[in-house]
């Protein structure tokens, strides 16, 4: 154990600068409320993604990106959350659970769409099992982060950009 910690100290903490990202992948529709800056609690809802987006969302908590340093946290219940992140096309079977979760988020219900599928169904457009993307169920997200899947840097920057201006 001593040796392991020694290496840890020797190597240093690897949290990175995230300032390089692709601006084209970020679309801001509405500004995030300034009151949430520095303490944004997110509940993630997978509505039918291929799980690549989830893979990248879990990566946000690793020591390279460490999203908590920006005051952004993933919480366990929609009742604790300020914002919902939504991935994937919305399947018929997940439509009702999504609405139930949204009902439980306190106002203003901030919606953040992640990945190409979330807005219009992406590659799954036209499949019988999906009701479509957020566009088709008349939910306007605050932020859309494009990519299949979007990179962790794009996701963090997308959320932070929502507070700017």
């Amino acid at each position, binding site marked *: *154990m001593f040796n*392991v910690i020694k*290496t*840890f100290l020797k190597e240093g903490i*690897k949290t990175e600068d995230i300032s390089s990202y692709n601006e084209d992948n970020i679309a801001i529709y509405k500004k995030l409320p300034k009151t949430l800056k520095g303490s944004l609690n997110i509940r*993630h*809802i*997978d*509505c*039918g*993604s*291929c*799980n*690549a*987006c*989830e*893979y*990248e*969302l*879990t*990566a946000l*908590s*690793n*020591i*390279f990106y460490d999203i908590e340093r920006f005051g952004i946290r*993933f919480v*366990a*219940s*929609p009742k604790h959350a300020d914002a919902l992140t939504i991935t*994937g*096309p919305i*399947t*018929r*079977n*997940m*439509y*009702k*659970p999504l609405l139930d*979760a949204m009902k439980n988020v306190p106002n203003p219900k901030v919606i953040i769409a992640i990945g190409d599928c979330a807005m219009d169904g992406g*590659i*799954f457009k*036209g*499949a*019988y*099992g*999906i*009701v479509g993307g957020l566009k088709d169920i008349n939910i306007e997200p605050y932020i859309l982060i494009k990519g*299949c*899947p979007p*990179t962790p840097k794009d996701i963090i920057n997308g959320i932070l950009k929502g507070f700017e201006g």
Partner: protein
Amino acid sequence: MKHYIESLLHSDDYQFLGLFVSDKTKEQGVFILRYLFYDIKNKKLNITEIDTRKEFPHIDIPALDWYEREIHDMFGLVPKGHPNLRPLMLFPENYPKDFHPLRKDANLNIEYRGYEEYRYENFEPEGSFKILVGPIHAGIIEPGHFRFTLNGEPILKLEIRHFYKHKGIEKLAEGKPVEFGLKLSERISGDHSLAHSLAFVKAVETIYGIDIPPKAVYVRAILLELERLTCNINDFAFIFQDVGYSFGAQKVFAIKEMLMRLNEALTGNRFNRGIIKVGGILKEIDLNIVKDGIKLLKKEYLKYKKLFLNSSTILERTDTTGKVSYETAKKYAALGYVAKASGLYFDTRKIMENKLYGPLIKEFSLKSGDVTARLKVRFNDIEESFDIIEEFISNIPEGNIYKNYEKKDGYSFGFEEGQRGNIIHMLEIENGLISRWKIRDPSFHNWPIIQEAVLGDIIADFPLINKSLNLSYSGNDL
């Protein structure tokens, strides 16, 4: 015929790989059911076909339960005598009863409204209570519903309900070109982007009759091992996290991130998407980047493996937890590490492609079937992957990276060993377009096993057991 299939299912010499159905009512007036087995002794596939118009025999073995319910949903065919024919993928709340999408004459325009209620199993012994979890879970994971019946702390029964993510991928691909299928195949289960796309192109290449150049074979194998490595390391980190050992978890997550960056440096995509094409690979890649990087990561990984195996407090949690016996694994036709940890060995690379891998893959299996055993199988897989990558990079043949081909019609299977186990794609091509595509992710075999693995354990161990199985929801739900 029923008795013959039954005997194969119970035989130790045959591995059940799946049940594949095609609608041939237009051409032959029947639906064709193909039971796929692998004959381990004689090293060949065994495909048993049954033609039917409406009914087919029900076989009383857990491995076929989901298949039969799936076929009932998708084609409206009836497994005669099935005692529990509830809808599986098409939730009765959201889909009408007479909707069978994979029939060629199906009308896909269905109204979205409530139809009927789903019937859960009736199990309420005296003094028991229920804990309902999901479909939306507390972590960043995919949706699925778990119903626990408990009496005090131990779990008496677990009933799972999946397919919340059912999108209808198989139907979506019908009538579309192979190129679209390839793109879609990378999005069946994101963490297995490459394994699924390889299974798909292998099916296409068998139909077209292409022998891909040896260099492409090697590059594909190296990329596949990188993906396996990433997934196994990711699982290892999550097991660290679920036993409450954040230090180990974060350090191993860092290895995973470095592997993803290695992928990006190689192919330009963190999931290696878009590199595979029919006939070979899309572009030359510089494998020297891998060579040095992989050695450092191996050293780093070995540190944390030692840390894990030397910690009695961790092993206290993982030993004897989530036991899957050999009999259970066999009757569910388990695949991948779940099977290997319970003494049932099937590895597509070892059994079907021994010419390529040879002694690089050992027939490693354990008997205890608990969380520790599944992790030890992963350790073995990780070390094998490191060896394969090193060996293949130093022996890579020169030559072309793809081969030109002529398009043909036909039907074939494509096999690949993903990290979770054997992946199969059955593909039929008609007039140059996909006419039927059946995807079988190993999760479809392994998910029901979780219902037996948790019995007798306490509910606090469920996340750990779930992570040790780490199955794909997306690949299962399709």
